[in-house]
């Protein structure tokens, strides 16, 4: 799964957490709002895991670009 798809799913989870939060406040049930906060926490953790799992110089698909030997030679 590409990073863009993963991030879209995580963003949708965050949007769902806002919806739960607002619904909880609207109907006056704090437990529903708390469920929204829990989903928001899940979205944060998921996003941080995707950042931590990615190599530092990865491209948009989450793959590190290949470096050939010729790229690393130093001209003298």
């Amino acid at each position, binding site marked *: 799964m590409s990073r863009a798809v993963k991030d879209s799913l995580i*963003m949708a989870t965050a949007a769902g957490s806002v919806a739960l939060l*607002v619904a*909880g*406040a609207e109907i006056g049930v704090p437990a529903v*709002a708390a469920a929204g906060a829990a989903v928001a926490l899940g979205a944060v953790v998921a996003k941080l895991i995707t950042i931590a799992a990615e190599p530092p110089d990865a491209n*948009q698909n989450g793959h590190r670009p290949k470096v050939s030997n010729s790229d690393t030679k130093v001209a003298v």
Partner: protein
Amino acid sequence: MSDAYRYFTAFSIPIVLILVSALTRKIVRKTGFTWEYFYLGVDLTLAAFAAAAINVADLLEVERHAGDPPFNDIGVTATIYIIACFLLFVFQIAFHQDWSDRPGSAKWKQILVLGIASNAVGAALLGFFVLLKLRGKL
């Protein structure tokens, strides 16, 4: 106050905030408009967090004067709203850190994630907070 007027009031605030912030960035940086000026999800979420925190302080003060117990259902929900705003603030920071200058990423993906989706989450948090406050639910 009619419900349509409440919706208009609540959601015009984040929209005006986005336009004014983008214009301010353009004036301060002395360059032409770029999409980066409209990436304001973090700012909107922070504004919602600040508003929710002031609301809880206000609720506690009102209830102290009225002699009511400090945390009824509205107080608990308002506190949960603050916690969720803070969590989503951290979430927005992570998204902006990840997408703001990603090498090899298409520009339209950045606009979609930071310019539309991130702004929508922040605007929803702030707009719905104002709406719920106007309805007396928070």
